[in-house]
């Protein structure tokens, strides 16, 4: 059973288009994230949602708009795609950090490789 799933796995599109990536987690976690991984493998957080509310927004262009219809889903919509948006995008989820809790780690999806031509 897939814990964190993303669709699509690959996305190739032209500059200027609008596209969405979907993410779902079946772990019952309260918090979900979007990360961007560049060609040098550097992994940077973009957004975090806790119980459908935005809690982290890391200086990401407003062309990127996350949407959380419920706490099991966090979708990423990107408007007016640019060449520099080409990257692998990872969704992740976790429980809220608990003092001394064993389940603080984040579980990552398989990634969506976005190529903007």
């Amino acid at each position, binding site marked *: 059973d897939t814990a*964190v799933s993303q669709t699509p796995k690959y996305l190739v599109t032209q500059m200027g288009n609008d596209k969405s990536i979907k993410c779902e987690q079946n772990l019952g976690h309260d918090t979900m994230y979007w990360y961007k991984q560049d060609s040098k493998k550097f992994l940077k*957080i973009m957004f975090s949602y806790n119980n459908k509310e935005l*809690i*982290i927004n890391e200086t990401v262009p407003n062309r990127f708009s996350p949407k959380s219809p419920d706490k099991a889903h966090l979708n990423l919509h990107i408007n007016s795609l640019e060449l520099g948006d080409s990257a692998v995008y990872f969704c992740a989820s976790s429980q809220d950090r608990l003092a001394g809790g064993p389940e603080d780690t*984040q579980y990552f*999806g398989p990634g969506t490789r976005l190529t903007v031509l």
Partner: protein
Amino acid sequence: GESVGLHLPTLSVQEGDNSIINCAYSNSASDYFIWYKQESGKGPQFIIDIRSNMDKRQGQRVTVLLNKTVKHLSLQIAATQPGDSAVYFCAENNGSGYNFNKFYFGSGTKLNVKP
């Protein structure tokens, strides 16, 4: 596959040898650290974690060492196997305020295991 122009630090070890992957973190207030393994074409996977009230934690074939004085974290893999070949990331978190779920990832180290 790998991207052209990748400049990850790379560690090459012989199968059966022990591997040590190092990570320097920046925030002295960080109190929770995780090591992740990322295989080609997959998302990062949890390996082991450690809290700042500990300096060593052991898992199956892996050990994490934390030196808060010099803000250094290491991952030791015993009897390295070809399946250990991957990129390894450390991540830090300081668990305060709105950043309680925010992890900062290191730049990654690529481990190549030679058969």
